[in-house]
């Protein structure tokens, strides 16, 4: 498995050598009350995204100017991509951003309809490091909401943009953002008859996509550890499909546990000390919990039926899973010790791939009903089922850290016997069913997994 070390260096640059020291709070005009009044109801904002002005940051020098432009672009793209913000066209700006030395000319921003204004300053990089300062202004009450400076390696400039976008999101919407995150996925390339599948990882916005494996063996189902820089995934290495761990820092792979048959469908427990997975046995599959370290395995279900796609509730007390024990694939919830399994899906069709929302209140799932596949959400007791999106097939829902957005995979059918027309793409959608977007990937993609917040 030499190939697994393929892109180690790229990863180190992206994660181990992280931001040096963010968060120097700059004079904040009215703390406390200002923040409260700025919180905007997210569901209302759905219909009316918050108009926000993001002029290019002031820059001291050529290199700084490029970074400033790039950072403002990342922020704008993140915020508009959420569907909850509407960046205002810079050509309509009245006040020249460069002229905002201390306090904005409020009237100039009110007149173009801005509710919020983002300004900032980028110093010329020295010794590869750059200092980026930003301020968030609430235009109507004419006050500064936030002022923060980041010092980091200049190569981390995109991350600074994501971190600033997260601060803006949190200050204006009252809940944590999800922009400083990554997506692990399976890159798919080549003809359908000889598809090459590689583990890949990219920033949440599709930038910096890097391969983690070389494609010698099929890989599937990457899943992030909640705190460590690590993935669990399924590899066909040696033509034996089994769950492995992948250390994103070193690029090292290690087999998880010692099972005679196929293991698959891994997910970490909320605190990351266990992996829950499926073990194929006889004609079925059991749900098994492996405690990392000791590698002791505890069986939560038997294998008299297919029991797969297990996923913990965020508090770790329950597990939702997919089973055909009642004759067709349906969704179930059981206690984390395997007791008291209860079916929760009762709508029409066959149900798959339940994933518990990080907020704890919803289960996302895949439903096949006749000829179509739908991505849906339901309450954890199975009530209030809604289908958010459909496709020829959809699969592999994954929540962003605040539970607001689901990314998934959608395929299109082949249009002839050569497999032409078959595509597999990543798509994101708000849990309200709005703001569906294609996620750009360098190749076809499947099996997305959304990381926790990096900072």
């Amino acid at each position, binding site marked *: 498995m030499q190939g697994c070390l393929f892109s180690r260096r790229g990863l180190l640059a992206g994660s181990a050598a992280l931001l040096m020291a963010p968060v120097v709070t700059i004079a904040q005009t009215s703390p406390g009350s200002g923040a409260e009044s700025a919180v905007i109801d997210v569901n209302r904002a759905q219909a009316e995204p918050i108009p926000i002005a993001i002029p290019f940051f002031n820059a001291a020098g050529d290199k700084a100017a490029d970074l400033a432009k790039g950072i403002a672009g990342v922020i704008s793209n993140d915020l508009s991509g959420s569907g909850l913000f509407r960046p205002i066209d810079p050509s309509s700006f009245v006040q020249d951003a460069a002229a905002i030395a201390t306090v904005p000319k409020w009237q100039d921003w009110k007149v173009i309809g801005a509710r919020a204004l983002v300004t900032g300053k980028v110093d010329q990089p020295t010794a590869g490091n750059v200092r980026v300062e930003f301020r968030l202004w609430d235009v109507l009450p004419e006050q500064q909401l936030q002022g923060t400076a980041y010092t980091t390696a200049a190569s981390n400039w995109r991350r600074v943009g994501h971190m600033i976008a997260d601060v803006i999101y949190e200050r204006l919407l009252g809940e944590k953002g999800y922009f400083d995150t990554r997506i692990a996925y399976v890159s798919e390339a080549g*003809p*359908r*008859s*000889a*598809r090459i*599948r590689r583990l890949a990882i990219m920033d949440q916005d599709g930038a910096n996509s890097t391969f983690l494996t070389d494609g010698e063996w*099929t890989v*599937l*189902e990457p899943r992030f550890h909640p705190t460590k820089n690590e993935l669990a995934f*399924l590899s066909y290495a040696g*033509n*034996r*499909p089994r769950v492995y761990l992948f250390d994103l820092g070193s690029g090292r792979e290690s087999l998880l546990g010692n099972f005679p*048959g*196929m293991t*698959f*469908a891994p997910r970490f427990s909320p605190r990351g000390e266990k992996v829950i997975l*499926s073990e*194929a046995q*006889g*004609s*079925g*599959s059991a749900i098994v919990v492996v405690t990392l370290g000791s590698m002791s395995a505890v069986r939560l279900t038997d294998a008299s039926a*297919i029991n*797969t*796609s297990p996923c913990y509730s965020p508090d770790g007390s329950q597990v939702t899973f*997919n089973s055909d024990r009642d004759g*067709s*694939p349906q969704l179930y919830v059981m206690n984390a010790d395997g007791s008291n399994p209860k079916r929760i899906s009762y709508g029409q069709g*066959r149900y*798959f*791939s339940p994933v518990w929302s990080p907020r704890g209140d919803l289960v996302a799932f*895949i439903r*096949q009903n006749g000829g179509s*596949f739908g991505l849906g959400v339901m309450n954890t007791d199975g009530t209030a089922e809604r289908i958010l999106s459909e496709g*020829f*097939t959809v*699969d*592999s829902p994954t929540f962003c850290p605040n539970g607001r957005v689901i990314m998934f995979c959608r*395929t299109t*059918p*082949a*249009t*002839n*016997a*050569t*497999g032409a*027309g*078959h595509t597999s793409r990543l798509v994101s959608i708000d849990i309200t069913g709005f703001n569906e977007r294609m996620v750009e990937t360098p190749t076809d993609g*499947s*099996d997305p997994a959304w990381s926790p917040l990096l900072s």
Partner: protein
Amino acid sequence: MKFRLIGAFAALALLAACATTPKPTTTGAGATAATQGPVPGSQQDLVQNVGDRVFFAFDQSNLSEEAVGTLTRQAAWLQKFPEVKVLVAGNCDERGTEEYNLALGWRRANAARDFLVAKGVSPSRIETISYGKDRPVALGSNEQAWAQNRNAITSVQGFNPQAK
């Protein structure tokens, strides 16, 4: 490497299946062998003279009459060549989720394996694997292709006639 081999055989078998009367297919690399018929006990022998795969209904793993016939021939063939080991790979059509299909493919491979074992083939000669929906032999997206892709395919592992 194994994947590519299996893929090549699968393509061959598919060509044969499309023709109205099965006839031996001659390809560049295997031409010498093919003109004299496949080497007994080889993958090609299995494909041409026995049948290397059985098919399943949607979301099912029970063996049809036809499947029972094919597997019965496979069991007899395996008893004729006791040195041959096989891999039985279970596959699914594309209309399901990755994880469920891995389990379903496993169940299909296991159904074929259990039948071979019941017919007297030693379990130690049979490995099973599931490729879920990731190794379609028919590349279209229609009922005909899906029927081809819901299968368990037996392939010869490590057969080496020169070694004998």
